[in-house]
């Protein structure tokens, strides 16, 4: 064992001396390699953290949302609708919700207007003519506590609100574009009659029963569309997967270019390298020793690049809010949320990235050496 370690130490030492001979070329390769790992790891770390964040946020949302459909379009919940639901066993809590979208031509952005309901993150009391706004809205309109702001409703009437508060920064991922107002103001602003709601939120006593209850609801209310929390989670999942895919497709050109460059660098043996392999064999190196030395060369370059790229990506995602991919990955058109994700590293994801970056390069370094390494050692003598 001691001999084996000594041998590997010697081979690594030789490899480092050997690599340092072409400093500029190898440093350039290392830099490009680390950049590719950085880009890939940034996308993977960010989407993974975002998925996790979304799952945590949705944990507190209702299990089932009921929307009423008219001619295939989402319509308001009429009076008497909620009462029908109360008779279904297993439904623990029912609440009519009021929310909708408002386009603000001043900043050309859509806001989400919402009347707070119990059991959500927005469970707060808001006085008449007051609003609570998300951080991105506050930023875009330059608002703070106590400021006045007017919105012209879809009926053409002007409404003036006082900013009661700005929602905390740490909830920005889900509240960036939010404007909260009390139910009476909401109804007046959008012209929604009393006892009408946008949709209904249901909580279910036993989460295992969600699908059975959904089936019963479908029978009772044939005109209703049911949105289950688990389905929302799945949709989020696929949206983030899709966005991740888009970025990876955009990156694929550069990845391919790097792959060709790395393959050429790793596999193309110069006459000088072939001569060196011949010398090593002539002075007593076995074919296996040459291959091990080349293995260490590939492994040292790719491992260093992997570590550099991954650590840089970690900083990029969790300390600089993924500044490079913000427009594609976060998905808001105008109001970008500013938030810092909770650092989370998935072992499987690290292993996948490792396998697709370190492994191919190391193999590309060794395989072509094989042919050169099995040449007769006396070639040097004859040369």
């Amino acid at each position: 064992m001691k001999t084996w370690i000594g041998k590997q130490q010697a081979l690594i030492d030789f490899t480092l001396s050997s690599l340092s001979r072409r400093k500029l070329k190898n440093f350039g390769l290392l830099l490009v390699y680390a950049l590719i790992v950085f880009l890939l790891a940034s996308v993977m770390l960010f989407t993974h953290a975002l998925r996790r964040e979304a799952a945590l946020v949705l944990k507190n949302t209702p299990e089932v949302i009921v929307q009423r459909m008219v001619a295939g379009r989402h319509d308001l919940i009429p009076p008497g609708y909620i009462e029908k639901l109360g008779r279904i066993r297993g439904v623990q809590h029912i609440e009519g919700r009021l929310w909708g979208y408002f386009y603000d031509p001043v900043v050309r952005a859509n806001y989400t207007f919402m009347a707070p309901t119990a059991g959500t993150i927005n469970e707060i009391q808001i006085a008449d003519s007051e609003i609570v706004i998300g951080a991105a809205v506050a930023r875009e309109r330059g608002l703070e506590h106590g400021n006045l702001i007017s919105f012209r409703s879809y009926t053409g009437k002007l409404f003036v609100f006082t900013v009661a508060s700005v929602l905390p920064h740490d909830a920005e991922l889900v509240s960036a574009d939010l404007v909260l107002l009390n139910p009476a103001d909401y109804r007046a602003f959008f012209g929604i009659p009393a006892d009408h709601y946008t949709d209904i939120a249901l909580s279910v006593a036993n989460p295992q029963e969600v699908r059975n209850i959904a089936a019963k609801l479908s029978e009772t209310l044939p005109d209703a569309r049911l949105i289950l929390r688990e389905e929302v989670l799945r949709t989020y999942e696929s949206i983030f997967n899709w966005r991740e895919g888009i970025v990876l497709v955009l990156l694929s050109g550069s990845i391919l270019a790097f792959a060709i460059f790395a393959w050429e660098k790793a596999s193309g043996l110069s006459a000088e390298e072939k001569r060196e392999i011949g010398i090593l064999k002539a002075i007593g190196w076995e074919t296996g020793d040459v291959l091990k030395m080349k293995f260490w060369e590939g492994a040292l370059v790719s491992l260093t690049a992997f570590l550099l790229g991954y650590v840089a990506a970690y900083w990029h995602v969790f300390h600089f809010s993924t500044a490079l991919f913000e427009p594609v990955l976060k998905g808001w058109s105008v109001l970008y949320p500013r938030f810092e994700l909770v650092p989370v590293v998935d072992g499987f994801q690290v292993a996948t990235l490792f396998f697709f970056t370190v492994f191919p390069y190391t193999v590309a370094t060794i395989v072509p050496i094989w042919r050169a390494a099995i040449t007769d050692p006396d070639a040097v003598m004859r040369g």
Partner: protein
Amino acid sequence: MIKLTNIRKAYNQGQHNEFWALNGIDLDIEANKVTALSGPSGSGKSTLLSIVGCMARPTSGRVQLAGRDISGLPERFLTDIRRSTFGFIFQQYNLIKGLSARDNVMLPAYPLGGDWRALHERADMLLDTFKLGHRCHAPVEWLSGGEQQRVAIARALINDPLVVIADEPTANLDTVLSREFLSILESLKQQGKTILLSSHDSLVVESSVVDRVVRLRDGHLPEAAE
């Protein structure tokens, strides 16, 4: 110490450019002596050195090292014998450019995985012996021809071999450096090394250091001169 029996060696055997470099060589190489192979270019000197040094196998015939037949051994065993028994000094020195003199000297010992500190000390000691201690960190391409050859000699000795094989060692040296090489050869001989070299340099062949000259022509031994 080394006994060659009816050694024949063909290159590109069975092809249109088949060439027989050695044609039935019988030779005994004595231990602790300096044996010189002499002859014109293409006479088979380098091929014979390759076969003795376990770098190549003969097409037919037997090579015995200290009574053991090594001509049929697989590459792995031949490599093992090559690095433990033989040290090589090549005509073009065959040093690896960009590496320091000390790194070049240590190269044959790397695959053995011995004590790292001891290896460094041994390399430094050899470089000191050949008056190259002050140049140990210099890349070999910065060294003069004579210095490069001394690095090559130090490299040949790093694994403390029984036999030193030198192929045309003075071909790229002037008279002064050639004499210097011969004095190194003398000291190696005094240390008990067996030396086999090829040369058509009269300075070497006629030197008193050389105990025996074996003349080769067209892959044969037309005569042997003591």
